[in-house]
């Protein structure tokens, strides 16, 4: 079964639609989004691989964390 985290994708969509790019998210940006501790840790670290594993859409990962990709 395909793993989807709705809270992660909802938050990343909101950031992407503001045309913001991030290296990582702050504690304050995570408040009120019903994220799991693992999701919060991955967002705070800007860990794109972990976010993918946790069910974030890779197109959203790419848009928000574009600077984390070397290519």
């Amino acid at each position, binding site marked *: 079964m*395909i793993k*989807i985290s*709705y809270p992660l*994708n*909802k938050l990343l*969509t909101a950031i*992407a*639609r503001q*045309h913001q790019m991030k290296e990582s998210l702050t504690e304050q940006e995570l408040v009120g989004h019903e994220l799991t501790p693992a999701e919060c840790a991955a967002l705070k670290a800007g860990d*794109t*691989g972990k976010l*993918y594993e946790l069910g974030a*859409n*890779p*197109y*959203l*990962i*790419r*848009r928000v964390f574009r600077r984390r*990709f070397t*290519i």
Partner: protein
Amino acid sequence: MDYHSPDMAEIVGAALTAHAPLITGKPEVSKPEQRDRLYAGFREAGRRLHAARPDLLVMFVNDHLQNFAYNNLPAFCIGLAGSYGAPSEGGAAFMRIPARTLRGNPEWAMSLLEAGLAAGIDFAYSHDIESWDELSVPLHFLMPGGEVPLVTVYTNCAAPPLPTPRRCHQVGAFVGDFIRARPSGERVALVATGGISHWVGTPETGRINPEFDLRVLDHVARGDIEPLTRLTWEEIEREGGNGGQEIRNWIALLGAVPGWKGDVLAYEGVAEWITGCATVWVHP
């Protein structure tokens, strides 16, 4: 020999192309010989499209989560937009091609939508489509004059679970039958964009799989589409990447023109654009 009544609509040509934004957005990072060959392939597809003298382009394309988010993800969506920013001002800066507005054909699109629903193809619809590279990059080459109006069929290729390739083929077949049954004399061309292999935002970002790409192109060239319709999401994800899922658009188009075959005008696995890029002209 096919007989075509001049009173009925006709599919006058079809093209399959990549749509990666870096094709126009970062031309300077690619190898000049690869870029030249691919651009030549795009321009040849454009020359053939122009020569086919279409009155309408039906575009099989996909969203990249700019229109449809996780609160509402249609498998298939007909664009009823009266116009498309292709690209918009913001998109133009990113894709480094001039902003322009292309006409839609909402009446035609509504006819397709209503016919689909009547026939059991449960299309969603949208009056307001924000288009990105899926229209802008290929049409920059294929229709530089912007003279032909568009109808769009958006298929979910980006937010799995996705409709099966077989279902995409069936939807395309419906669109083809719908066109040929119109008592209008319209000349309709089809364009499908996306693919072939690319990995975007995943841990394998940057990978390209020419073996998968050439396999897809070989099926298209021979008009042997059935094996493509049997591909599973897992197979495509493994061999073609999450971006490779966009071959659904190609498969839908090929469903509209049974028996047609592809002339592969260019194929380049462009590492710097993280995409296996192709342009194909499809004909009877």
